[in-house]
């Protein structure tokens, strides 16, 4: 038994590939906890960031700067009455939120947080991801249909039409990234030569970016950038976020497909939505933003060797500098926390909150110090860069919501079918033609 547990530790494969189901289960539970953690942070962060963008303060009462607000909300939702309308289709009404959460989380099976940090790696990884994430529509349609009420049905119909329309543009953008994985050349304009084969495996896609020394967003600039832009627009529409949040348009449809849901079931929909946001962001990161690779992954600088601090002779001074990034981010957050604790008004009623904020800063600083230790520091790099990119995407989601007004339904359909679809086809063709540049040039020479 112990052998079974420890035998995986020296493996260079994901647990799924190594056939170690116990470690696969551990990875699954860690991902579950991690994504739920991101959802909790988003719950607080979104309200806080939105509030500050609108010159408000946001949650301030529950804990210092409202830090305990997500926990208070969770308790409220847990103790709230769960209403199931008498006319609802009971089994489907029950299944819909479970389905939404299940689909949103299932995508994470193939997300590579590092070269070995994925539950499993399949040779059809990206197809699996696209296929599973499009099943989310079913949950929304089930919720709308089972509620047997006007607003949810309208919301579900709108939602399914919208998700289905943007999926095509999304798929075309993904195909153009897959084409890039097969090219052997190095650098943004490296066209390469000889027969190589592309890959659909998520880990393989990131490794292709490492081999070509370029993130695919900069490949054949601006072709990769346009493909990424198409995907970025489509992924907001897929997750029903502002400015494409028509299924939940409060001013027209009350709450869209989850009007009839309350309490814990409603919170499952929210969990599914936020987990879905993280999931599509991680697809975008894997395909275009280099997955777990740090910025400038092929710049190493002169090699150095510092006893006890840096013992990787194959890596250079730039790697050494970048390896402190996780600790520095945590310490910066800790400093921010301390700074704001010092700025708290000196009022006896706020004493507990001030102490709480100091304690929070202390925890963050502790985590930062742990991340400074060389064994931890070297192992956390891949995961840190992936999570950092996810965090950037999450902030962008909030920013979009604060900035842009909601689209009208006909405008939404027009953007999906008449702008993004032709653009996606065009990007695909241009990628194909540039990638085969040498062959086309040779053929033209033969003709002329």
């Amino acid at each position, binding site marked *: 038994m112990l052998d079974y547990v420890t035998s995986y530790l020296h493996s260079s494969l994901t647990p799924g590939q190594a056939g170690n189901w116990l470690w696969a289960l551990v990875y699954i539970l860690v991902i579950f906890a991690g994504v739920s953690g991101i959802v909790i942070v988003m719950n607080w962060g979104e309200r806080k960031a939105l509030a500050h963008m609108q010159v408000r303060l946001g949650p301030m009462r529950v804990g210092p700067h409202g830090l305990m607000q997500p926990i208070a909300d969770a308790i409220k939702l847990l103790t709230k*009455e*769960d209403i199931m309308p008498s006319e609802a289709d009971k089994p489907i009404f029950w299944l819909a939120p479970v389905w939404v959460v299940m689909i949103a989380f299932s995508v994470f099976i193939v997300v590579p947080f590092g070269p070995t940090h994925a539950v499993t790696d399949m040779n059809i990884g990206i197809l699996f991801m696209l296929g599973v994430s499009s099943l989310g529509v079913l949950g929304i349609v089930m919720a709308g249909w089972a509620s047997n009420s006007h607003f949810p049905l309208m919301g579900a119909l709108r939602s399914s039409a919208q998700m289905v329309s943007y999926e095509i543009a999304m798929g075309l953008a993904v195909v153009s990234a897959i084409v890039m994985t097969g090219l052997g050349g190095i650098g943004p304009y490296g066209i390469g030569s000889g027969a190589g084969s592309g890959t659909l495996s998520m880990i393989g896609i990131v490794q292709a970016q490492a081999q070509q020394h370029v993130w695919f967003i900069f490949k054949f600039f601006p072709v990769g950038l346009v493909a990424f832009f198409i995907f970025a627009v489509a992924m907001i529409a897929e997750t029903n976020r502002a400015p494409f949040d028509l299924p939940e348009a409060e001013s027209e449809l009350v709450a869209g497909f989850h009007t009839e849901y309350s309490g814990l079931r409603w919170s499952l929909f929210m969990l599914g939505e936020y987990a879905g946001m993280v999931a599509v962001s991680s697809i975008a990161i894997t395909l275009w933003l280099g997955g777990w690779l740090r910025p400038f992954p092929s710049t190493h600088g002169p090699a150095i060797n510092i006893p006890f601090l840096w013992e990787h002779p194959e890596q250079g001074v730039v790697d050494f500098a970048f390896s402190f990034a996780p600790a520095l981010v945590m310490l910066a957050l800790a400093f921010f926390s301390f700074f704001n604790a010092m700025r708290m008004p000196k009022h006896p009623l706020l004493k507990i909150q001030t102490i709480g904020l100091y304690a929070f800063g202390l925890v963050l600083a502790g985590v930062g110090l742990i991340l400074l230790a060389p064994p931890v520091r070297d192992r956390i790099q891949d995961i840190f860069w992936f999570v950092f990119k996810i965090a950037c995407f999450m902030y962008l989601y909030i920013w979009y919501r604060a900035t842009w007004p909601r689209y009208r339904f006909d405008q939404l*359909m027009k953007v999906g079918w008449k702008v993004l679809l032709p653009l996606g086809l065009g990007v695909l063709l241009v990628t194909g033609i540039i990638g085969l540049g040498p062959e086309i040039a040779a053929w033209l020479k033969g003709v002329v």
Partner: protein
Amino acid sequence: MPQNYVPIFLFVAVVAIAIPATLMIGKLVRPNNPEKAKLMPYECGIDPVDNARGRYTVRFYIVAILFVVFDVETIFLFPWAVQYRALGLFGLVEMLVFLAILIVGYVWIWKKGALEWV
């Protein structure tokens, strides 16, 4: 390899246990006193007007049909994208022919007005 796919079932099993378990635990703490007005479909406070599952615009069906056509097209592009270098110029031309046929259809539905949402 087939064993790469086993974690999918593991994952589904974890979710299928964890989420209903949460709902069950919630049942122990939350109040439950239903009444007739509370269980009515929500329609801004008034009694619901006729059946919710009535007729809705045919546009949704058109979008669904177009989706099937174009999504299948995208799926056909994936094998080509993987073997792109190996197939070379021949594969590119084949793909262009395939896309050209679909683009003709796309232009036709555009002109026909199927993409308009009136």
